Every structure is written in C-alpha cells, then in structure tokens.
C-alpha cells in the first residue's frame, strides 16, 4: 500500500527562500539549498519548489537552485511556477526534477496538460489549483492569485483528469500562511470528486491540523510551508505524532 506523504513546500524568490501570508507579505526565510538538505535529511517524502517571483515568471530562473538541490537531496522533487511550455518542463526535468507543477496555463489550454502527460508520463504532471472562498463558493484564481477564472472547481478538476493529469495540488488563498488551520470542507470536496492523488496545502500550523486532513479525507499528501519554516517542526516529528493515529506513513 502506498504511503501518505509529508512534503515541505519551498517558495522561491530568485535564489532566496521566502514565505507568504494569503499569497502576500513576502518574508525571507533563508537559503533554499540548506533548507532542502535539512528537510530531506529529516524524512521528508518529497520536496516542492515553487517560483513565486511576481516580476520574473521565467521558470528558467529556478534552474540553478534546482540543480544544486537535486545534487544533494535524494528524494522526489516537484517544481512549478511560470511553466507554460514543453521546453520549460523538459529543462526542469533535465536539471533533476521528477514532477512538473502547472497552474495558470491549464485554464488557457487544457490540451497542454494532455501533451505534457504524453511526453513526460502522467505521473510527472501535477496541476496546482488556487482557490478563494467568495460568498460561500470556491472561486479559482490563477497568475499568482491575481486572475479570477469563471470555471467551477468541479468542472476544472474534471477537465484536468480528462486530460490525464497525474496529481492535483490544492491551495486555499484564504488559509495560506496563516497557520490557523486547513480548509477541511475544501479538502473533502476535492478528494470526493477526484480519482487522482490530491496534495493539500495551506493553513497547517500544527500536527493536529495534519491529522485532521488525513483523517477526514483520502488525501495522499500534505504540503507545509510555514510549519517547517517558522517552528522547530520537521517531518520526523510530524510522523512520530501521526503514528499514534494509524496513518499509513513512511517511518523507515
């Protein structure tokens, strides 16, 4: 049986690691390569690197950091932020990534998901979705949370799956960086409609939050940024806590 995953989420601004709140308020939190090494040595199951630089959306700007990380961290690495061509994706893969995370391009061209899945294999294609609750409904945003999309969450997910997406990563803009708890309704909704693995991120501030996400839904992975950047937590401690709740994790 496949293990549930704990994934440190690394947001990158040029060659620095940053952390945001509600997709804003950038705070420098250190060197991404050193942090990645520490996470990978403390039993992280995977790493996610995202370029969140608003000015420089070129995915090529991620490559120097990615290359260094992939030479030192021997776990799967997923990379995203500004990827919108097969060339971008293949450069990222050549430099040590295992999976490509795409977001804004999906709304413009669902076929891109399919062609990427054909060329790289569907396991290498992760679609990330940013949502905000407006009038009690989930509304989808792209372009770093700036562009509102008309399509519904259900329809977007079903189109992604039809186009052979490998995994879906779901982020709540309302919860992101707040550490005040995940949006459990969102987690449940998404895991109920998707038959591909779901990675949930946003709002995790303690171990009980992670336990709740795994207990309430069939989510495959939880990605955490603030929890690992601002507290003395690491994946080892998360896993030893969750072990008490019979969650199927990779302990050794």
């Amino acid at each position, binding site marked *: 049986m*496949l*293990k549930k995953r704990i994934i440190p989420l690394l947001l990158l601004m040029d060659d620095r690691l940053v952390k945001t709140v509600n997709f804003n308020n950038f705070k420098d939190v250190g060197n991404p390569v050193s942090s990645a090494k520490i996470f990978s040595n403390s039993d992280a199951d995977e790493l996610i690197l995202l370029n969140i630089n608003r000015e420089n959306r070129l995915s090529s700007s991620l490559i120097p950091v990615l290359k260094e990380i992939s030479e030192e961290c*021997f776990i*799967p690495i997923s990379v995203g932020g500004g990827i919108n061509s097969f060339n971008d994706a293949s450069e990222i893969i050549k430099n040590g990534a295992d999976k490509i995370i795409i977001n804004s391009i999906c709304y413009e061209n669902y076929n891109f998901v399919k062609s990427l899945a054909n060329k790289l294999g569907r396991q290498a294609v992760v679609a990330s979705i940013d949502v905000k609750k407006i009038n009690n409904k989930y509304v989808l945003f792209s372009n770093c949370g700036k562009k509102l999309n008309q399509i519904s969450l259900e329809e977007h997910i079903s189109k992604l799956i039809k186009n052979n997406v490998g995994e879906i990563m779901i982020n709540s803009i309302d919860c992101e960086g707040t550490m005040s708890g995940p949006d459990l309704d969102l987690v449940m909704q998404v895991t109920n409609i998707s038959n591909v693995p779901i990675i949930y991120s946003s709002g995790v501030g303690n171990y009980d939050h992670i336990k709740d996400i795994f207990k309430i839904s069939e989510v495959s992975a939880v990605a955490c940024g603030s929890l690992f950047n601002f507290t003395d937590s690491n994946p080892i401690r998360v896993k030893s806590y969750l072990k008490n709740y019979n969650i199927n994790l990779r302990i050794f």
Partner: protein
Amino acid sequence: MIGILDLKICNLSSVSSAVYNLGFDIKIIKIDQKDQLNDISHLIIPGVGSFSNISKEYFENKNFSSELDNYKKKGKPLLGICLGMQFLATEGFENNKSKGLNFIEASVNLMETDNTKNFNLPHVGWNEINILKNHAIFDGIKNNSNFYFIHSYQVVLKNNEFLFAETKYLKKFPSIIIKDNVIGFQFHPEKSSKNGLKILENFCRWKP
C-alpha cells in the same frame, strides 16, 4: 570506478550524483563508443522511458551489446534500475513486443490494477519491500523498508529462484531480482532517501 550507462533516453544526473555522493568515482558509459567497460568495477543501467525505446536504442549499437555480454560473462556486477531492471528480462510488451537483454529469464508486462483511486497506474510513491532471501545487497536494510517507485510495467519471472524481494500494489510484484552477478531494482534508489543510498552503496561495494 562505477560505470553508468547512458542510453541517451533518460536523465542520469540523479543516479550519478547519488553514486558520487557516496564517495565513488563515476564514469558515464556512452553506448556508441568502444572499449569503455574495461576499467570499471560495477555497471549501472538506469532507466526512465519505455521498454521498446530502450530496446531499439540498445540493439542498434551492436558493438556495445557484445562488450556488455563479455562484461557479464566475466562475473562483474551489473545493476538495472527501474526500466533498467525490466530490460534485464527476455522480452517486453510495452508499446510492442521487443527484445530485452535476457540476463534473467522473464517477461515485462503491464501491472494488474482495478483502476480505483487506491490502485491506479502508474504505481507512484513510497512502498515497502518484503525481503524473501538473504543477500549482501540487504546489508543494513530492514525488512519492509520503504523505497520510491514509479512504473506501470512489471517483471514476470519464469523462475522464482531469482526473486529476492517483492512489493504489494493490489497484487505482489518483484521489486528486487538477482541472478549471479546481475541485480535489478524496480524502485529508484537515487530517489529513496537513506534506504536508497544504503542499498546503492551495498551494490557499489558488492563482490559477487
């Protein structure tokens, strides 16, 4: 010195960084060049891609295939990773029927799944290996340790004598096969954190 075979169809950087980080010298073996296997002690065939592609690329280079046969006959250690392990088999059925190295009698078929959320293909993620027999390759590796898998096809052995570890994903499939000086890992040791580095180091120190 550890040789890593470059079949021109996949990315070698993670495997070479892992072996290099363990403290071994590495040499990238180009399939279209001659006399490269003499000065290496161990050879790794990494693999990402499809069986039919690897088969086409390999058998187009006749000189290399006879050099590899010689290398194997000398009893020097050979490791196939993921598609590299599948290529050790007699034949594969990905895309179309194509020839493998036939170093271990087996075929390569699509894995059986039920297409539910829990058992979709590809089989991707961390899963346990159940060790069935003792071998130097398992030095320091606990039974039911986790490794990182990513594949849709699996090896089907003709003879279970060569089955050393198996993994369950709906059904059991071979995750480590060994015959004499030839080893295959279905998982990616270069992506399997501490366990992966340990088993890769065991291979690099292995004297069959």
